[in-house]
């Protein structure tokens, strides 16, 4: 019997692959955005609205992993995206290995922007580097303004918090001011954009954010 010492962090290999993917996407000038949220917060709806808003302006690909069927992939493909479905077999988060598979299947040549629709979950996706250039989360009004207190880690790692379903604000006790305070206590540099994927209110700020991030990513 021989002991082979490894002493390696479990995520070391994942993190190396994530860095390789980021470097590759940087070289291509393709911005990869990791989109995270609870199930039903509005990832797919938001992606469809985003595709409509940026049609003719950016070439967009989508890697769907949220659920293990291709309904979301079909929805976004109908909206004009190049889309692939990852089969995640009951996993709770995406890692860099799965992102790499998704990118291979998608063929990113010529794309300006790729969204990764992560698996609906606020806990585990926050802990794993997918190789994305930007991390964005959606929190929807019905989920409540106390989520930063319950799931602090995801709020710490995101660049942008989208607050969806503001059309429902009159029916819930969601306090945007309190929410902003709670997020900035965890992550002072995170931006917060309230909008409604249903009515389209506030979507312009989100597409402007995408344009700015994509332009910045393309500049060396």
């Amino acid at each position, binding site marked *: *019997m021989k*002991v*082979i010492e*490894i002493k390696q962090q*479990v995520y070391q*290999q994942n993190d190396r692959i994530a860095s390789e993917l980021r470097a590759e996407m940087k070289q291509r000038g393709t911005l990869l955005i990791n989109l995270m949220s609870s199930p039903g917060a509005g990832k797919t709806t938001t992606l469809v609205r985003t595709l409509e808003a940026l049609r003719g302006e950016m070439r967009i690909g989508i890697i769907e992993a949220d659920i293990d069927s291709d309904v979301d992939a079909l929805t976004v493909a109908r909206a004009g995206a190049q889309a692939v479905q990852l089969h995640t077999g009951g*996993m709770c988060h995406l*890692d860099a290995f799965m992102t790499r598979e998704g990118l291979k299947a998608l063929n990113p040549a010529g794309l300006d922007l790729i969204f990764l629709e992560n698996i609906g979950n606020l806990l*585990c996706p926050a802990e794993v580097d997918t190789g994305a250039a930007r991390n964005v989360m959606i929190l929807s009004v019905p989920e409540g303004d106390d989520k930063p207190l319950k799931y602090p880690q995801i709020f710490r790692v995101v660049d942008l918090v989208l607050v969806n379903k503001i059309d429902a604000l009159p029916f819930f006790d969601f306090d945007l001011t309190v929410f902003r305070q709670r997020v900035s206590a965890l992550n002072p540099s995170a931006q917060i954009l309230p909008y409604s994927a249903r009515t389209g209110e506030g979507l312009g700020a989100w597409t402007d954010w995408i344009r700015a991030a994509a332009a910045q990513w393309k500049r060396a």
Partner: protein
Amino acid sequence: MHELGILFNVVRTVEDIARQNQVTRIAALVLQVGELSPVVPHYLQACYPAAVDGTLLEGAELKIEVTPGNALCEPCQKVFNLRASRGKCPRCGRSQYEILSGQEFLIKEILAC
């Protein structure tokens, strides 16, 4: 489940290292899991057979060494276990501390046949 995805990462790393070392059979895998790391040893054990099915680790025993989540109290310099003392220094009752151990999650070693 969270632990399943984590184990897939472990399997890939171990398979790579085994290949580099020309190992073809593995008797045991040893993980070091800190009390403060976001994984539960019991769940790791539960998912393990499914995660290693059909891999080089199939049939290898999983051993988990749990390292204590210890902290140093800044005001009074006492070293204490965070779990057992529920995040408060048992001597002075404050929760201003520096974490000394327990956040690690390592693939420690494999035993090759």
